[in-house]
């Protein structure tokens, strides 16, 4: 008797799920251009996700404010569907599946950070739906596969890794040329910290006296700091995300270690880093790919708009997400159609300067953003390299 209950109930529930899930293969007339994105709105990367969300939504709002995009002779508005992937690559993949099969999007925008972006791009590429993304360093993007439908606008890791050395050279900074490298073992930490920094240190005539790696979620940097201090490093290069970056700096001060140069990639970029550390953040260097002072159309206005709309301090991440969305929408306009292959072709022909700089994709589907070196000074970031763009002088003191 129980078993028949089980069967009946299962059938009923499955039926419910199918009906509720919408099992029809047909779809009603599209009166809007459907695009979608899976981004981290909860979980450890929720901070990034909020910037990316704003950037995508702002670009779509701008397009709709102009009445939409001309497709097949009619002006259609753009509908952006955003899903939360909870900072989980498995969820990115299933969200992307859902956007493609249920919402029937014509094109996609990417998530943020390599493991999430790549998970979604793989699905999109396989389904032959165009995907444009920022927030994925180019080598990490290229190393997955030879892309056909996925496109990335971001910085190139070697540019980021060589920047500190170029900065020191440009200012003629006097140090003992001893470098300590400490990086997390996320994909970009391994590339920048594990491979590129040692190589560039050698190239520019520096000696790596200490090198260590730690898990992305680490809280203890004690023994690493001790080692770096013992080996007398005056230049410390760190690659870690913000929570770890804050903990690292605190522990560095507590261990009485005061290098002349401290670079913290990724983690030192957001304003929360400086707010959490106060004066101790002064002098810390981080690479950036965008600043509101850049000479590109709409840069300063984007910052003002963001700060007015959200009441929060801006981050460079609003720019690459805004630009990625614009690139996609422009491609749809150029293609004049919702056909995936046509949109894809139009993306490949992109050649325009956006708020983030000139965008043109190479054979690997990547568009490279130039890096500048920023240094925290008095709670603000100043550009210290390239010198012709500099808004401040290089300080050789931390805290």
């Amino acid at each position, binding site marked *: 008797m129980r078993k028949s209950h089980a069967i009946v109930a299962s059938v009923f529930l499955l039926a419910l799920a199918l009906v509720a899930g919408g099992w029809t293969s047909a779809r009603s007339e599209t009166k809007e251009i459907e695009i979608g994105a899976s981004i981290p709105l909860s979980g450890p990367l929720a*901070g990034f996700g909020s910037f990316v969300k704003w950037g995508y939504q702002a670009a779509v709002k701008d397009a709709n404010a102009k009445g939409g995009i001309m497709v097949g002779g009619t002006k259609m508005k753009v509908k952006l569907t955003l899903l939360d992937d909870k900072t989980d690559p498995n969820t990115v993949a299933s969200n992307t599946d859902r956007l493609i099969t249920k919402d029937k999007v014509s094109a996609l925008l990417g998530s943020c950070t390599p493991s999430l972006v790549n998970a979604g791009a793989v699905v999109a590429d396989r389904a032959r739906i165009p995907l444009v993304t920022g927030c994925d360093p180019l080598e990490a993007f290229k190393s997955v596969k030879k892309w056909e439908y996925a496109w990335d606008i971001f910085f190139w890791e070697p540019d980021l890794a060589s920047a500190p050395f170029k900065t020191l050279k440009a200012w003629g900074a006097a140090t003992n040329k001893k470098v300590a490298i400490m990086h997390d073992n996320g994909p970009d930490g391994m590339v920048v910290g594990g491979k590129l920094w040692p190589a560039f240190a050698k190239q520019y005539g520096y000696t790596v006296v200490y090198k260590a790696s730690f*898990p992305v979620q680490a809280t203890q940097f*004690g*023994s690493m700091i*001790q080692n770096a201090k013992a080996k007398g490093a005056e230049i410390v290069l760190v690659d870690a995300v913000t*929570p770890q970056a*804050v903990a690292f700096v*605190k522990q560095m*001060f507590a261990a*009485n270690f005061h290098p002349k140069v401290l670079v913290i990639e990724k983690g030192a970029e957001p304003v929360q880093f400086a707010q959490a550390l106060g004066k101790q953040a002064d002098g810390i260097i981080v690479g950036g790919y965008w600043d509101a002072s850049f000479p590109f159309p709409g840069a300063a206005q984007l910052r003002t708009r963001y700060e007015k709309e959200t009441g929060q301090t801006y981050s460079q991440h609003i720019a690459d997400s805004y630009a990625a969305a614009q690139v996609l929408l422009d491609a749809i306009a150029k293609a004049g159609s919702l056909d995936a292959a046509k949109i894809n072709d139009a993306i490949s022909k992109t050649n325009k300067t956006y708020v983030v700089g000139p965008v043109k994709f190479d054979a690997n589907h990547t568009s490279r953003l130039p890096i500048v070196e920023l240094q925290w000074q008095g709670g603000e970031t100043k550009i210290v390299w390239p010198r012709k763009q500099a808004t401040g002088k290089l300080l050789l003191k931390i805290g």
Partner: protein
Amino acid sequence: MAIPTGHALATALVTGLLLGGLFTVTALGLSLIFGVLRLINLVHGELIVLGAYLSYILLTHASIDPLLGLLVIVPVMFLIGLPLQRILLTPLMGKGAEAPLLTTFGLSIIAQNLFILGFSGDTQALHASYANASLSVAGIDVPQIYAISFGFALVLTAATHLFLKRTAVGCEIRASAEDAGAAEMLGVNVSRVYSLTYGLGAAFAAIGGVLVGLAFSFTPTTGPGYLLTGFAVVVLGGLGSLWGTLLAGLLLGVVESVGAAFWGDGYRDFIGLAAFLIILAIRPRGLFGRAE
């Protein structure tokens, strides 16, 4: 693997011991709640983070120093924990061990989300001059905040021990932990004891949170990491033993730090977990666990 110098090893030992104090403080609340209520409080991590956020609010809006702010935060968290237990968990007593476990799990999910909504996902930290200073102990530089946490660990453990041994309420708590049925028969309001203990556990968690905020940083999702550490400490020390929790916390701190000195910080957590599993394999009840 690298053999550390004598100085590096000594630094690791001392730092590890003091850091262990921080582990202990974050685990005390969990230990108390499990020892008395037999409840695995899965929302413990979020209570820690809540303490940190409350301190952050006091610091940014009223410029109140985090440690001073504890005078406010401890009672507030106690008053949050008490009704939480009474309303959500008391009705579940007797419905099996999974029920309250999963309720606290549900709470932790809700709490993390509320944090994101209320404070955004950004990293925060508590800023105080003593938090980033260095302390010199016999020629070894250790983070001052670790020493402060160690102090808190000793004081809190001793204070709780005295409270349980010497006060009437403490006696009731111990009786309820020992045998709730017998205690009830002897006139103890076990239900009230449980609520009080939970409130106390929440307050302890908040103290841990403030120390974490001072020493490191926190985000809405920092909770689960400290929950796991807390568990490891409580289980390692033996369920129901406060001194066990203290010793296990210190031990874990030392093992992790010394391990990191040899194998690098990358494997620090792994070494801690491996040591935990090995010790459990040898002593399945933990160091001082009492027989169930």
